């Protein structure tokens, strides 16, 4: 791909992508820390995650503002336009991931008050790792404009769902077994749900990357589901 004749345009576009990537890194950290906080019952870390979330909000607003400004002032066309819109949409997804991470962290504060539930925590940890890996992969795919890698993330969406479903059942069993854990488990339920949704966002991002690179609005027919966020119960 050639560079734009107008360097500042090139710069602005690159800035947008870079900022998006940076926001991705931050989100990844937030999600990782949120999971860690839950797993390690680390309230300090949880508080740190809650506190850092605002940075993501600011970043998202900034990316959106820049994207709109770019559209207004540069009239991007073709792949530039797709890049801009993609950045805007990815930022929105990342911001949601950040919110979910914050939500997980907040629940840590409640969960630490209850007894630790080792097997559950391990399940959460495993699911967390999986989701985090997906997020990391898709963000790497974004920075590298690597369509194959993004598609790989997209096609492995079911793993997370399976994890979530088994975790859901596990939690219900747990609650029924020991009603004292109901409050904690209810929160764990949401933690699991949040992780599942972060996974969905990763899938979404993969779709956005696909759109950015190819310009096609839908990805072939490998996956029958039209919306990644709408499949779970």
């Amino acid at each position, binding site marked *: 791909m050639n*560079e734009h*004749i107008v360097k500042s345009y090139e710069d602005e576009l690159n800035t947008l992508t870079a900022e998006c990537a940076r926001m991705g890194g931050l989100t990844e950290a937030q999600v990782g820390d949120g999971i860690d906080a839950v797993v390690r019952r680390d309230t300090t870390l949880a508080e740190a995650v809650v506190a850092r979330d605002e940075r993501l909000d600011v970043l998202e607003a900034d990316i959106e503002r820049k994207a709109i400004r770019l559209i207004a002032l540069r*009239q991007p*066309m*073709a792949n530039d336009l797709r890049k801009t819109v993609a950045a805007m949409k990815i930022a929105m997804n990342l911001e949601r991931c950040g919110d979910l991470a914050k939500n997980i962290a907040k629940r840590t504060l409640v969960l630490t008050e209850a007894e630790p539930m080792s097997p559950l925590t391990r399940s959460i940890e495993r699911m967390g790792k999986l989701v985090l890996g997906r997020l990391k992969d898709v963000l790497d795919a974004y920075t590298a404009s690597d369509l194959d890698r993004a598609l790989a993330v997209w096609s492995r969406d079911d793993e997370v769902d399976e994890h979530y479903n088994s975790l859901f059942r596990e939690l219900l069993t747990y609650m029924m077994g020991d009603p004292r854990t109901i409050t904690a488990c209810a929160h764990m339920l949401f933690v699991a749900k949040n992780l599942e949704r972060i996974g969905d966002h990763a899938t979404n991002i993969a779709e956005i990357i696909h759109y950015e690179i190819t310009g096609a609005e839908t990805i072939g027919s490998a996956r029958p589901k039209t919306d990644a966020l709408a499949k779970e119960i």
Partner: protein
Amino acid sequence: MPAQRDDSQAHGSAPVHITVDRAHAGGPQHAIKIRARDVNVFYGDKQALFDVSLDVPEKAVTALIGPSGCGKSTFLRCINRMNDTIPGATVRGRIELDGEDVNDRAIDPVILRGRVGMVFQKPNPFPKTIFENVAYGARIHGLTTSKSELEALVETSLKKAGLWGEVADRLHQPGTGLSGGQQQRLVIARAIAVSPEVILMDEPCSALDPIATARIEELIDELRNQYCIVIVTHSMAQAARVSQKTAFFHLGKLVEAGPTGEIFTNPRDSRTQDYITGRFG
């Protein structure tokens, strides 16, 4: 919005010919009006167009874009044989208008130009009255037989060009007294008066300010329901706004042609992409 979906479907049909024109067979509802095949143009020894094959759909606006000297105007001027008026220009290849080769000896260029109207870069009304400007074509082609018929024709044409309201009370004042944008619409009215099938426009807005440009674009949009319009424009934004099909020329070759929506959001050829995103050269 069926019209918009058509564009994205248009390129589904397989090209009949080895060509870069993605919408060779036109959209489902747009019959092909002009079919150019392997058009080569030479100015003296210099070749200006290389094997251009393009289909221009009926009742739609087709925009020709590309950098200076890419041959887009040259191609436009082949359609109504205005290249004949340039000394040393030779045109090879077929350009069919409704299946007839315009370069055929049996086609009188004068008659052809009656069927294919043209609007130029600079508004060029004759230094006559507004009425006479519009009536001129009818007079030379003998289209009307009575004065009242002629008056009706002038009125209709001016109305179609969206100028009637502004000039109805001064039909007999010189056309050169109008503003640039009005002049350009007058010129369009003049072209319409001969009831052409095709209207060629060679950068019709490059001498106008944004407001006048918007008016002309609005007019073009209205006219496309009745005519086959081919517009050459420097401004990609304009091509994006007014056209349904876009063809990108570069160095005398047709690089890519397809539905406008697609060309501007997702062009196939990297040269097209580079050009419309400002990465060229």
